[in-house]
């Protein structure tokens, strides 16, 4: 689709067409976010043997999130007096924009890929790294020590875990011989990479949790330590945008894991008659459930443990995985 | 013994080094050590004199420097004049050392004083035995240094400092003449050796004018050191030093050095009649001139100082009128009685704590021995018959007469009258009459002061008999043994002897009338208001004249030069350095250590370059 924009003549029709496509995608993702939040609360409730939200929209609380969003929209936007006003305003945008940008490279089905980039994987990693700046800027602009600490922790954590994340990806890329996500999916015709690259999957999954700042790695907004982390001073819709970015990333990361390790839209064995997008959705939902499951199962870890895990366990493991994969490829897939 | 004569100057040097290095803060030990060395020196000098009396002269030399074909030597020489001088110097020096034991008692820097005495003695002794002019000059300057240190011993007194500087500078003027003379001789003869120079003179290798010039130049050096007329002003001022120093300087060493130098280079003078006449005229004028000043001075030491100048004039007169023996003879006798007088005066000052003779009086009751020895000294210097001064002065008068210059003879005769007049003035004012207030608490000095004076008194009385027409001319024979001069046999008329005696007695008598009987005190008499008195009392305003014609113009000239240097040379320099400083200032401003400044400059200049390139031949607008 990207190439189409570049090569076509500029016209209002094209502008409308591509804008419409973008809006459609964002609507889908927002729908997901809405129900992901509900799902999170429901799953948490089930795991904790309680009903969860059940008042609005029937027993299932279907309209709960909508009500929450409405509440956030109506709330006053407070800007702290000593805050750096410009940055305070811009920070949520900086944090949010990359979260949507990364969606562009994800192939949701055989046909639906917004940008079929040769360096798709790297694009995802690079762009997602940008939102750290938004978080740090938010922490800085709030002029609040908890916010600042939260921002610094976020930056440190994300930089630390980006390295094992990318290194674990290398195994997959090595086996595929391409960084194009479509190529990677096609390479999983027979066997998913979760089977050929189990170590990479485990590392990637753990690093992904850390990148998403979800439990048990949610030190960035650890309420008991930092009140609310970088978003302490944010209220109303600005705060909502941070939440939105977080869930966007959950969406994107789940999609990426689906693509990288679970074969993306590839059907399971003989069930090829079911459309690829459905397969993608199923696998994707499973991954999301995994994230929720882990969040409610494990306790939060300490900051030093976090760093040690990242640098002393995941990084060497990922490196070893790259070596082993390279050797295996050299021997068996020559 | 005569072969180890070089030890004589070395011993005082050792004394100086030991005392100044190790015994600085031990006055007792230091002074004792210095005295021991002094005694040994004296004994050695006596032995050398005895050895010389029994044997021959000795000249020992070692090569020091070889410059091209010229060899400069170091060594020592013992001849009649040298050995006599060695004896006199070491003898007086020893007595002064002993005397100072008591005189300097209680001074914080007693050790240093003795060390300086050692240095001074060393320089003088070494000067005396030098066989060549260069060595002489070296020690000549060392003598100057020694005198500078001793005169300025009480350096905390402004006047002492000034006197020390004055002595140093005035003698330096003479020394320049001496140096030029030595160099002149060296260029002509090619050697510093006395013997070679004299040989050259004898053989007629030198033209007359060179001899005259070098002789007069050497004489200028002697004028400076011996305080002859134009350069005499430092000598009375040098009285600022401790009294024993005055005795040493004025009797035996420093001032004698000038006379000694002329005597040592006498063959040179002898050839040139002009030089001889110069010496005689200067000496004669100095004698009468200083005597007239001495007549009116109030300070006992100053009177003695002017008498020294006057007596030195006598010696020069003698030398200038071919009275070689007479000059050296008077130098010898003078050394004894003048040392005696100074020591006695020191004893008096020690007792009454003033130097003004008009405040003293009647001391002969309180200080019998001092009074006696002072009288002996006064008689000796006045030429009282049978005292040492009588014989030596008579010799001088004879030589003045025989040289055929009657004016000088009569001036000398009158000076002899003046000498006895003012010397007895001192004696009468200080020792006779009623006891003045200042003298009332005076006490006789201790034995360390008295013994040297008594010894000197003996010499003052009897030293004249070594050269008399009655008993024998021992000194004359001894000196002429190896003095390379021609002796003119002359017959002096006998009336000179009577004239001298009469003049001396007349002086004493006049003095008695004026001062012994009437106690005339110039400072209180109506005479003090007359211009004559004030002119003479103020030493003919010589110092003031010097100040006016030398010091002030020099200062003015220097101020002019300073002005030129400051505004012209300095201005140019300031301008140049200012320009450079300005450039440097800009440079240092650019070197601020700030990288951005450097970057800005670099970019700015690069932009200039690229702009010029682009606009000119880069074809920017093509």
């Amino acid at each position, binding site marked *: 689709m990207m190439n189409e*924009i*570049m*090569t*076509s*003549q*500029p016209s209002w029709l*094209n502008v409308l067409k591509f804008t419409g496509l973008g809006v459609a995608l964002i609507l889908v993702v927002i729908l997901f976010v809405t129900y992901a939040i509900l799902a999170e609360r429901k799953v948490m409730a089930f795991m904790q043997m309680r009903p969860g939200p059940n008042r609005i929209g029937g027993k299932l609380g279907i309209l709960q999130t909508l009500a929450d969003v409405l509440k956030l929209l109506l709330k006053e936007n407070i800007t702290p007096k000593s805050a*750096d006003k*410009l*940055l305070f305003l*811009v920070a949520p945008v*900086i944090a949010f924009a990359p979260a949507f940008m990364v969606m562009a490279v994800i192939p949701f089905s055989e046909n639906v890929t917004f940008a079929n*980039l*040769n*360096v798709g994987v*790297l*694009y995802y*990693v*690079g*762009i997602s*790294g*940008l939102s*750290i*700046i938004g978080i*740090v*800027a938010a922490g*800085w*602009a709030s002029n609040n020590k908890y916010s*600042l600490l939260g921002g*610094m922790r976020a*930056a440190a954590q994300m*930089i630390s875990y980006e390295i094992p994340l990318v290194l674990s990806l290398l195994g997959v890329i090595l086996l595929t*011989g*391409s*960084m*194009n996500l479509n190529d990677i999916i096609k390479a999983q015709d027979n066997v998913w990479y979760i089977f050929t690259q189990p170590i990479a999957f485990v590392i990637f999954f753990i690093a992904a949790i850390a990148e998403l700042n979800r439990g048990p790695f949610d030190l960035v907004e650890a309420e008991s330590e930092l009140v609310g982390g970088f978003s302490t001073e944010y209220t109303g819709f600005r705060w909502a945008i941070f939440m939105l970015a977080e869930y966007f990333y959950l969406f994107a990361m789940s999609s990426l894991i689906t693509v990288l390790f679970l074969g993306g839209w590839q059907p399971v064995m003989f069930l090829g008659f079911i459309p690829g997008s459905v397969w993608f959705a199923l696998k994707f939902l499973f991954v999301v459930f995994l994230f929720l499951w882990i969040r409610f199962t494990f306790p939060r870890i300490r900051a030093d443990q976090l760093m040690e895990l990242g640098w002393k366990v995941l990084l060497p493991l990922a490196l070893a995985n790259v070596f082993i994969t390279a050797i295996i490829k050299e021997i068996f897939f020559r | 013994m005569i072969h180890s004569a070089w030890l004589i100057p070395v011993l005082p040097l050792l004394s100086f080094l030991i005392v100044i290095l190790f015994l600085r803060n031990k006055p007792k030990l230091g002074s004792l050590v210095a005295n021991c060395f002094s005694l040994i020196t004296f004994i050695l000098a006596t032995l050398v004199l005895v050895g010389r009396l029994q044997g021959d002269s000795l000249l020992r030399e070692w090569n020091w420097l070889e410059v091209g074909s010229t060899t400069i030597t170091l060594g020592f020489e013992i001849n009649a004049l040298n050995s006599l001088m060695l004896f006199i110097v070491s003898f007086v020096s020893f007595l002064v050392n002993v005397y100072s034991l008591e005189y300097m008692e209680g001074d914080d820097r007693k050790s240093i004083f003795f060390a300086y005495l050692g240095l001074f003695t060393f320089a003088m002794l070494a000067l005396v035995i030098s066989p060549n002019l260069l060595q002489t000059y070296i020690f000549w300057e060392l003598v100057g240094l020694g005198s500078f240190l001793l005169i300025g011993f009480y350096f905390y007194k402004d006047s002492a400092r000034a006197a020390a500087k004055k002595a140093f500078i005035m003698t330096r003027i003479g020394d320049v003449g001496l140096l030029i003379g030595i160099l002149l001789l060296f260029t002509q003869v090619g050697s510093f050796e006395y013997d070679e120079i004299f040989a050259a003179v004898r053989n007629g290798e030198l033209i007359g004018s060179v001899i005259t010039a070098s002789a007069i130049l050497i004489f200028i050096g002697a004028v400076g050191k011996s305080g002859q007329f134009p350069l005499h002003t430092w000598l009375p001022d040098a009285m600022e030093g401790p009294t024993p120093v005055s005795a040493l300087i004025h009797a035996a060493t420093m001032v004698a050095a000038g006379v000694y130098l002329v005597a040592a280079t006498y063959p040179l003078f002898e050839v040139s009649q002009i030089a001889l006449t110069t010496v005689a005229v200067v000496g004669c004028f100095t004698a009468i001139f200083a005597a007239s000043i001495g007549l009116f001075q109030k300070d006992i030491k100053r009177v003695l100082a002017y008498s020294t100048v006057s007596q030195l004039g006598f010696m020069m007169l003698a030398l200038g009128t071919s009275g070689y023996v007479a000059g050296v003879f008077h130098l010898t006798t003078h050394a004894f009685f003048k040392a005696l007088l100074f020591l006695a005066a020191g004893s008096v000052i020690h007792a009454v704590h003033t130097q003004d003779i008009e405040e003293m009086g009647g001391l002969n009751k309180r200080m019998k021995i001092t009074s006696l020895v002072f009288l002996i000294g006064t008689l000796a210097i006045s030429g009282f018959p049978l005292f040492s001064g009588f014989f030596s002065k008579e010799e001088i008068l004879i030589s003045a007469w025989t040289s055929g210059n009657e004016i000088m003879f009569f001036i000398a005769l009158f000076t002899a009258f003046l000498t006895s007049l003012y010397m007895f003035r001192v004696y009468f004012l200080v020792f006779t009459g009623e006891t003045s207030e200042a003298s009332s608490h005076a006490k006789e000095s201790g034995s360390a002061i008295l013994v040297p004076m008594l010894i000197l008194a003996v010499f003052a009385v009897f030293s004249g008999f070594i050269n008399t027409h009655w008993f024998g001319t021992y000194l004359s024979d001894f000196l002429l043994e190896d003095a390379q001069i021609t002796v003119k046999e002359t017959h002096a008329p006998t009336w000179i002897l009577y004239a001298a005696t009469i003049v001396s007695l007349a002086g004493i008598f006049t003095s008695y009338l004026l001062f012994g009987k009437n106690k005339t005190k110039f400072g209180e008499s109506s005479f003090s208001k007359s211009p004559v008195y004030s002119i003479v009392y103020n030493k003919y305003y010589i110092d003031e004249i010097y100040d006016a014609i030398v010091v002030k113009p020099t200062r003015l000239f220097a101020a002019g030069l300073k002005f030129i240097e400051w505004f012209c040379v300095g201005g140019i320099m300031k301008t140049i350095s200012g320009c450079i400083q300005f450039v440097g200032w800009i440079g240092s401003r650019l070197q601020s250590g700030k990288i951005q*400044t450097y970057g*800005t400059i670099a*970019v*700015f200049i*690069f*932009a*200039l370059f*690229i*702009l010029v390139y*682009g606009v000119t031949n*880069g074809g*920017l*607008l093509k």
Partner: protein
Amino acid sequence: MSSSGIVFSIIAICAILGGLMMITLKKVMHMTVAMILTYFSIAALYVLLTAEFVAVAQVLVYSGGITILMVFGIMLTYHKAENRDEEKVSSFRKLITFLSVATLGIVSYFLVAPVDFVAEEIFVGDHTKAIGEILYTNYIIPFELVSILLLVALIGAVLLAKKDKEEANE
């Protein structure tokens, strides 16, 4: 003008805007954030030049890595009085610098303006693969050297920024 021309214009304006904001803004943090815009625009420019790998590397290194590093630097050396880029720099020097830089720019413009090379499709297919192949064949030694350089820089930076033992004990 083609659509790519419009895209280029937008990107160029964004890049220059980011740079100008970097120069004119007062707070260091704002400048840093403004630079992200420029870095990102440049990455987009690389995409326009069909250099996707370089573009992604640009985002990864500059927007992600170096900017975060700078933000850390600002935070660690945070000093209230120095948060602002004070006006102590003399306006004379600013003027001189501006004139010099402008001269350089203008002259360079005249040098660059006549350049009219034609774009060629230099490589059909996967750029990334080709870059990798060239890196590991022609440029293997520089590549290894760069890896050593990065290692040295890493260790050096850690050593430099680390507190001395005595210092830490105090």
